[in-house]
């Protein structure tokens, strides 16, 4: 169920609609990830690794395998977190960061450029060799909590999805080949940005 790579696109500048259309993946889709959480509460980022799955009905499963086991199921507006058999659930509205991230993620996987434009102000830089798609939420409720969502990648392959919240915390989702990449000992936001940019 690995995400297949569509044919390469021309190596010149692209518009966001074309790019988003090319990012579309057939469902169900699954991709490995590693996620780094930066927080003012933490002296260094926490890293988790696992697999993201999207079912045909849009249900999202986030299976963390390391350094502990946890499964998050997001079904419409409910989030269910299962860790060591202990379950916790809440509605998506309670976690605006997650709500925004999910909206962006679904639009990208669906190749739904109109949906993306409806939810976010979209800005695209770069070309086929390396692009940066920055998304800022249009919904004021979400905009209060989220500074931006930055998606970087090359050709039809997204590499990183960085969510920066209104404070100084952020999470960075590394996808595709970067999902299994060994990270340096003391990784920082800057060194990670460089990795996401393709170096």
């Amino acid at each position, binding site marked *: 169920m690995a995400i297949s790579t569509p044919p390469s696109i021309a190596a010149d500048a692209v518009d966001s609609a074309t790019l988003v259309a090319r990012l579309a993946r057939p469902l169900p889709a699954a991709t490995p990830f590693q996620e780094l959480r930066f*927080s003012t*509460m933490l002296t260094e980022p926490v890293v988790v690794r696992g697999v993201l799955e999207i079912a045909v009905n849009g249900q999202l499963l986030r299976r963390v395998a390391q350094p502990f086991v946890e499964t998050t199921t997001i079904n419409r507006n*409910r989030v269910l977190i299962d860790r060591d058999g202990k379950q916790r659930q809440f*509605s998506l509205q309670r976690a605006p*960061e997650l709500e925004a991230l999910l909206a962006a993620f679904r639009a990208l996987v669906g190749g739904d450029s109109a949906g993306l434009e409806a939810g976010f102000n979209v800005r695209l830089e770069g070309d086929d060799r390396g692009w940066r798609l920055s998304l800022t939420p249009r919904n004021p409720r979400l905009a209060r909590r989220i500074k931006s969502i930055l998606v970087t990648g090359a050709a039809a392959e997204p590499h990183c999805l960085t969510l920066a919240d209104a404070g100084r915390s952020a999470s960075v989702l590394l996808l595709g080949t970067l999902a299994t990449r060994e990270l340096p000992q003391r990784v920082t936001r800057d060194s990670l940005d460089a990795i996401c940019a393709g170096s």
Partner: protein
Amino acid sequence: MDRTLKQRALLLTLWLVALAILGVWIQRTLTIGTDLRLFMPQASNAEERFLLQEIGESPGSRLLLLAVRGDEPTRLAQLSIELASALDEHNRQQPAAFTLVANGDTDRDSIPERLLPYRYLLTDAATRGAFDAKALRETLTERLRDLTSPAAGAIEQWVARDPTLETLQLAEAWLPAQEPQRLHGVWFDATGRTAMLVAETAAAAFDPPRQAAAIATLERTFEQIRGNSTASLTVSGPGAFAVLMQRRVSGEASSRGLLASMGIALLLLLAYRDWRVVLVGLLPLLSAALVGLATVTAAFGTVHGITLAFGFTLLGMAQDYPIHLFSHRRPGEAATATARRIWRPMITGVASTCIAYLAFLVAGVTGLAQLAWFTVAGLLTAGFTTRYLLPRLLPADAHDRSAQGGFARLAQWLHGLPRPVWPAVILVLVSVGAVATSRTPLWENDLSKLTPVPAELLREDTALRRELGAPDVRYLLVIHGSSAPAVLAATERQTAILESLLRDQVIAGFDNATRYLPSRAVQLARRDALPDAATLQAALANATGELPFARDAFQSFEADIAAARQLLPLTIADLAGTPLELRVGGMLFERESRWVGVTTFNQVRDPAALIGAFAGAGEDIAVIDMKRASETLVARQRGHIIKSLGIASLLLMLVIAFTLRSTSRAWRVLTPMLVTTLVTVAVLQVAGISLGLFHLVALALAAGLGLDYALFFEHTSTDASDQRRTLHAVLLCVASTWLVFVLLASSSVPVLRSIGVTVAVGVACNFLLALLISRRRGSPLNTTR
């Protein structure tokens, strides 16, 4: 002739002006009450006072159960969440209509910011050792993992402020003790097709206007959030029923009242063929209603809606007096002479009916006392205006409508019929047999059946309550004390017993104020167990170890603990203005300068064990069986009313015997009424209806009407035309009364229906028996007028 016409016009004007003045005064002074407890017996001791208060105000009775159904379960869950938060929003903006809104969603904020530091006094975090280095390390490892979860952004500040998750623990502890299943995060019934919520109203159950406002808020809010969903909202519970019943009673009473009025007007027009007579004939009834209202207004200030609706029904019998005046008039006789001639049976009837209603005056039920004042004042007014004012308004010429073809033949036929006494004897025997063998309890002992709710609604409510694990309203543990802290401490001392009852499955759950507000001693112990700043910092440093938490990550947590160490224990006064105020207030309150703590139970499986467990707990602690206490109260009250009615009946018989100056004549008058009362009770029994207060009033009404029929039949001379005129009058009275009560008997509201049946059966039986027994055996019929 011209002069009398002028006099009549002047009298009519004066009468109408007097009525108008009275009407304006009533309109300005009268307030209409809605508290149904006005119709409940008066309490004679503390336990009964508590009981009556609880019936309308206990948390259980203020609970509205909401069911959202008719769409996909996921959509229903979403509607449930949106409805709950919209209601919270509504509560914040206006004086709170709801003291609690719950749908099983654990995310919903329930602790106001101001009270947050108190969480360390309300949960056992400190005393269970949650702040030791070892426990903290486990906790912080979990929180670190939480920070990697997809919801990290939303929970980060809570991880920092409340790493041991005491707020979550409080929110969970404050959820109802027993819950329905949760689907998609909210409560659903067992079928999974109905999302369920509860809303506890600030208004008492027996406050229909405020309950109606609360229900309107629910319905409006639901409409706003419903969007394009096909879902619908059903509201159930005592408050919803009170509103429903009030709407139905007033709706049906007024539509039936209108029909009956039109029917009676038509009947009178047919009978007298003169619209002026019909119109003028309404004046005694109108005067009766206004004087009755004015009397109640002056005596009580407020009049209960039921007094009004029911009182007007009772007062309908005042319309009989003008009918007697019109029908009894001999050709060429002055109306004043007719009035003088029929005054004796009429005033005897008025007086006896008044005596019967006076029994309700001393019954100790405010609503019945109002009803008695209203009816007595009204009937006296109708009687005296018919005697002294109405005749002076009538035209000098009179037609004897009873002499006309059809009616005269009917009268003649009736006159020729045999009049055996044996049917009455058989009726008595059959009725006694029916009452003796009936399986229906003779008396209704259930206070809540006062305005009975249609059975299908009650069934649905019971089902919803069972699903939601709403508290059993029958048994309560009530603890009295001199102050709120004293009651809380006393309640807490019972916790061990309560928990053992839970273990032994005597009860399925319990709830009291200590769940929200632990006693002073417990709060102080928790406060004193909180670590000081240095200890906490050391524990945190130790716990953090290799975990990558920043040194100042838990500053807000440390600040809250430091603040909690300075707090005085949370009291009920501190809860003012928070959602918890009314929630706790329902279980801990001041009454008559003493404090009362109430513990409610879920599913009492062994009442005897429950009562026994607190038997020796002291005089301030008692398990109250609300059902038994209310039944005792109702039975005692009814005994009192029946005794009063018995005395009234004796008095009434004496009055009649005295007026008629003959025992045999008195028996001829009284027998139909006595037999009819027995027959009516038998009919109700066979129909499966137990007697309540309103049935007693209806029986008294039917008896009063029957007495009137018998008195007039008995009073009439042996002259055939006089007898025919009496028959005309009584038949018209019977027909108009029947119309009113047969319409009432077709009502969908049980209480109106059974009153309708009671009076309709009573009137028919009274009339037939009066024909057989009370009517004088006259001379052979001649055709003279």
